[in-house]
């Protein structure tokens, strides 16, 4: 008993070992990609990494805690606008704007989550849908957010005196952020709170009966997802140097959700795969011209039909 009790269960250890090699291979490819790729490929790859971060963040909310969030892009917007406003209007250092964004995302998460997470998940979906639109409309109408035309002149970040300018700089920056997010997800999914999310997702009443505060567990998942999206937003704003409300539409929330569901909710490799597909699909299908939305829809329907649990589903299901 003592040996089993202190180490990872056999199944988990096996999964870790099995995913270690492909993971390292993928990382190696990601590291050397800028040596071979042209600017266009790198731009698409950077977008893919952005979606990896966003999908992993949303996966905490949807995949771990089982909460349907239809307005996730709002937190992405909170991060992007916080960095935008602080650096462009108030001359803040980019790095200082990150903790401020995280706090702002937490506050937004509490404002929207605390009253609604007591409700069952279908109500939450409606409220989050509204929240996403509210954030976008506020951004369109305030002076400080630059209205419909958005913000320009967002400061580019410096790392030890080296200014991030070119596309490959941001590619690596997003790669670091994606790796950091994977590390965070791995750390929490096997922790006490992470398990609590799964207990709540699988049986809320049994979870409450065994001593888990379900509202607090859901709120923590919601805030954690919000913080990850906001950090992605900070880096996104710095890369674009200009942001407008149209980057944070309902469509954006849907795309992120699509990445989570497509790859396989709840499991990190699946979500990473789904995120990359969401970013790549429009580019790959560029040749289809005006038929692109149709081909995309058919491809997605086929995937949902033949792999209803996602392309790379959670083994538990």
């Amino acid at each position, binding site marked *: 008993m003592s040996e089993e009790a202190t180490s990872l*269960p056999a*199944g988990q250890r096996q999964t870790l070992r099995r995913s270690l090699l492909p993971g390292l291979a993928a990382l190696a490819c990601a590291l050397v990609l800028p040596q071979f790729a042209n600017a266009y490929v790198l731009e698409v790859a950077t977008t893919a990494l952005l979606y990896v971060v966003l999908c992993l963040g949303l996966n905490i909310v949807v995949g771990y805690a089982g909460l349907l969030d239809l307005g996730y892009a709002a937190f992405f917007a909170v991060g992007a606008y916080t960095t935008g406003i602080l650096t462009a209007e108030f001359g803040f250092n980019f790095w200082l704007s990150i903790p401020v964004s995280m706090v702002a995302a937490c506050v937004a998460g509490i404002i929207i989550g605390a009253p609604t997470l007591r409700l069952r998940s279908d109500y939450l979906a409606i409220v989050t849908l509204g929240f996403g639109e509210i954030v976008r409309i506020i951004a369109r109408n305030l002076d400080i957010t630059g209205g419909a035309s958005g913000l320009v002149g967002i400061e580019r970040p410096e790392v030890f005196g080296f200014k991030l300018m070119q596309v490959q700089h941001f590619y690596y920056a997003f790669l670091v952020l994606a790796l950091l997010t994977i590390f965070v997800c791995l750390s929490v999914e096997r922790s006490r709170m992470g398990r609590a999310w799964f207990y709540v997702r699988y049986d809320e009443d049994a979870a409450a009966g065994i001593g888990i505060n379900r509202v607090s567990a859901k709120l923590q998942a919601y805030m954690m997802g919000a913080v990850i999206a906001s950090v992605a937003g900070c880096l996104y704003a710095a890369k674009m140097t200009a942001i407008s409300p149209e980057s944070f539409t309902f469509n954006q929330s849907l795309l992120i959700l699509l990445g989570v569901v497509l790859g396989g909710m709840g499991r990190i490799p699946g979500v990473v795969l789904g995120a990359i597909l969401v970013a790549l699909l429009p580019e790959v299908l560029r040749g289809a011209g005006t038929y692109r939305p149709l081909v995309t829809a058919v491809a997605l329907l086929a995937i949902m039909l033949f792999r209803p649990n996602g392309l790379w589903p959670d083994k538990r299901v």
Partner: protein
Amino acid sequence: MALLEVRDLRLSFGGLKVLQDISFSVEKGAINSLIGPNGAGKTSLFNCLTGFYKPKGGSIRLAGRPITGLPPHRITALGLARTFQNIRLFKEMSVLENAMSGQHCRSRHGLVSAILHLPSQRREEEAIRAAGMRWLDFVGIAEHAHRLAGGLSYGDQRRLELARALASTPELILLDEPAAGLNEREKSDLVRLIRRIRDETGVTVLLIEHDMGLVMQVSERIVVFDYGQKIADGTPVAVRADPRVIEAYLGTEE
């Protein structure tokens, strides 16, 4: 002072009086039972005790502390654990993870310390895991620790529910029809297990059960319900001889 004291508990759904002025108590270290025909209000009473239903009136005290109307997770943290009539495990998770869930309210590390991999967080994780294994071992299913809970046999799922509840280190454990669906051998194992819970861990047991043989064998005191009212309360011998109990179970002669 009794470990559990219920005074004048009332519960109604609309015009339906589910529980009417129920009073009884459970002494520390006892094994007691609640019996009564179907629909008598036994499970509703459990749901009031564990915070799933809010009673209309009356009071519930656990070890002298009022727990009436508290949310379920607070009541569990105060030392009252339960099992469910229809087994409610986290079927998609491992047996060990199920058992570990009971330890949630006895541990405290959150997200930040998990991300930072603090040594104290690692130690706590190991303690949670060890406690989960210990309770799986106690109920006799430790060899299945890494299987999915949904893949266990029915009897083992019942045991796992017990292990999960015990892992919250309760003072009082409420078992809602623990013998339902078990065969004779499993039932006698269950009787032994219930006695071991009390004798080896000191946890007080209150159970709802329809199997009269099991109830008479294991209980020191029995409270009998009918139509939301308490109609008898006493030792198995006394309860069995009570005319009102016989009437509730067998009906009256015209």
